[in-house]
């Protein structure tokens, strides 16, 4: 599940130590925007230290590296990829498939050098320019390592030569495009952060909207946002009850050797059963599966 991926500033030991306690599905140890130029080395060393011996609970652990247009990105990768705790890297400013390929090659070389199974390190691509959004499908399919694509917020808005509104009008098309590209490529669409950290109602509204668009989850900039996003993404009690019924009926039908089955007077076919199983997975009832 990738309902919530929480950014932790790579130069803040306090947040790095406790970040996992807030219960997000994933963590992003940030070496890029949260870290000032003069602290790039410090943050890299600190993040490396935490990957070696920190605790992350059941979170999916990723590191946001600096962009391939900077002098830091190779050092970032070399510092973090060897650690088993790392599951993926979040690459900023991915404009095209070529950027993904460059990172892919570098990852392969580090994995090989360190005796790590090739392809273990996933790539989460941040599409922060108009060009990146335009190339979303190509980016998502550029490497089997790509696990998710994420639209940029601030950078993308700037590139579109507009400003960020509370309704998110300017990001509307980019979000829809990104969901289509991600789903077509079989990777996860994950939304950008909601920057107004004390606007709980605004966050809920935006999360409801992006969930409806088809997003898998959202990047998170403050721990207080996690329960709100989970609350939106978690199935309601009604949805769970319905899903349990469908899955049970499907199981019974399979045991009887029947394909289609009727639940509450409606025919239930395979996609519906799959969706019900996914609902139960999200509700933490995956053992039912």
């Amino acid at each position, binding site marked *: 599940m990738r309902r919530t991926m929480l950014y932790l500033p790579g130069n803040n030991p306090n947040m790095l*130590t*406790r970040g996992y*306690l*807030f219960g997000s599905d994933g963590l992003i140890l940030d070496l890029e925007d949260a870290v000032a130029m003069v602290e790039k080395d410090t943050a890299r060393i600190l993040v490396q230290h935490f990957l070696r011996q920190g605790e992350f609970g059941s979170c999916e652990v990723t590191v946001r590296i600096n962009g391939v247009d900077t002098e830091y990105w190779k050092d970032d990768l070399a510092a973090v990829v060897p650690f088993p705790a790392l599951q993926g890297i979040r690459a900023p400013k991915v404009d095209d498939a070529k950027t993904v390929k460059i990172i892919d090659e570098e990852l392969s070389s580090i994995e090989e050098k360190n005796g790590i199974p090739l392809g273990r390190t996933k790539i989460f691509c941040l599409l922060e320019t108009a060009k990146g959004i335009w190339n979303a499908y190509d980016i998502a399919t550029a490497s089997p390592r790509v696990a998710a694509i994420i639209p940029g917020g601030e950078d993308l808005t700037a590139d579109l030569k507009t400003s960020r509104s509370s309704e998110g009008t300017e990001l509307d098309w980019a979000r829809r495009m990104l969901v289509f590209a991600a789903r077509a490529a079989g990777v996860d669409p994950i939304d950008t952060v909601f920057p107004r950290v*004390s606007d709980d109602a605004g966050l809920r509204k935006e999360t409801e909207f992006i969930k409806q668009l088809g997003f898998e989850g959202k990047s998170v900039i*403050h*721990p*207080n946002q996690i329960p709100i996003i989970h609350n939106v993404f978690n199935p309601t009690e009604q949805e769970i009850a319905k899903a349990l019924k469908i899955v049970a009926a499907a199981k019974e039908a399979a045991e009887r050797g029947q394909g289609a089955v009727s639940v509450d007077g409606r025919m239930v076919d395979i996609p519906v059963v799959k969706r019900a199983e996914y609902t139960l997975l999200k509700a933490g009832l995956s053992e039912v599966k």
Partner: protein
Amino acid sequence: MAKNLLGREIPDFIEGYGKTKLFQGAFALKPEGYRAGGKIRCVNSTCTDKRVSDIKAAIAASGLKSGMTVSFHHHLRNGDYIVNMVIDACAEMGIKNLTLFPTALFGVHKKLIEHIKNGVITRIMGSVNGPIGQLVSEGGMEVPVVLRSHGGRPRAVAAGDVHIDVAFIAAPTADKYGNICGTQGKSACGSLGYAFTDAQYADFVVAITDNLQPYPAAPISMSQLNVDIVVEVPSIGDPAGIVSGTTKVTRDPLRLLIAKYASELIEASPYFKEGISFQTGAGGIPLAVTAFMKEAMIKKGIKGSFGLGGITGYFVELLKEGLVERLMDVQSFDLEAVRSIGENPKHIEISADWYANPWNSGAAVNMLDVVILGATEVDVDFNANVNTEADGALLHGTGGHQDTAAGAKLTIIAQPLLRGRIPCVTDRVYSVTTPGEVVDAIVTEYGITINPKRKDLLDACSAVKGLPVVSMDELVSRAHKMSGPTDPVETEDRIIGVVEWRDGTVIDVVRQLKKK
């Protein structure tokens, strides 16, 4: 030198304190005999106006002399002008060697340091915070300070351990014959809870007001029966320091996480049912616990009976929404609480005696289901320290910590595992304020740690999916791992503080810090 029940070494006699009684257990000591009393007074119809011209005239009329005991209450908190005003006047009048018996002191009282140094004050019985605490910890007073809880203090007065010669009462409203209330006037502070025992037992009572009303003032919280003199001054305090604005629930994610776990522990406990009573105070975590509990109460459709202790606007909201039936208020923290206690008959002013004294016919804390507290450190035996910091300095008063822990059915200490680099869970606390016997659970960002004697709570929590239960051993070892070794506090032999349990026995002593 003998050891008390908790293994703390306590001398039989402490210079400046007297003979000690050893702590024997939270409920072990039973009182005998009769209550003490103040001087009998006689005022007849020739006196129809108790006003005097100024503070010095009041001090002179009170008969206050060098070597006596003066008492104060802290409802004006950091806005208080009274303590400094009275002690300055005493100094000018050549009165020395006073015992100061406040319910608490604040940063605004750091001016007293000069009066400690010049011998006007030679003894403090009450909490010493901030700079005064530091001064005392470094050996700046001849005799040890005595720390008592909010309930232990009225107990000591009623039992005759402490005799108040003159009580000075800050009166936001008063009339010329000494009827007082705290809810009206420009310096309104709400409840006058801590001052009641002082008014009742002192030999002489001075009311100081900046809002004189025609006789008889109304409403009346403390009556003319116990007030000997009234002084009108331009101002008794700074409203900005007396009450805060609206108390808001914290946005700090770590504190919210801890509060969420504490609330979940309460929900899992057998006390989360119709009629639950609770005390949560005004701190960041406790207030957030109240917010989470509110959600849970609404969801489960239950209502509380009463909220106790220091009251905030948040509690007032619960009262207005019908989620608690009554508020029992010993101290009103913010403007909303002050307004409410003045208007709503369901919001009741109670004295510290009523609130927490273990030696009366039943204090309010006895009726408490749940209390959320803090502590500077807690040890493997669940003993809690609230008086000293990790560096051994006396920095905090006991407040209602001991009393509510002893009274409540579920006592929770909720706080982050580390403050900066300093762990809050340790092998042995530097000094004990509250014994582990009355502490049921510690809640940190790592989860809920239950006192093994509360197997019922352990079972209740284990039954809740997703509730992290962490053993004390695990918590301590985590704290050690995160903070690394810390240097032990180095002290001299001299005792500078005596920590009394609420029944007057000595639970611990605090020694003078070695000069660095």
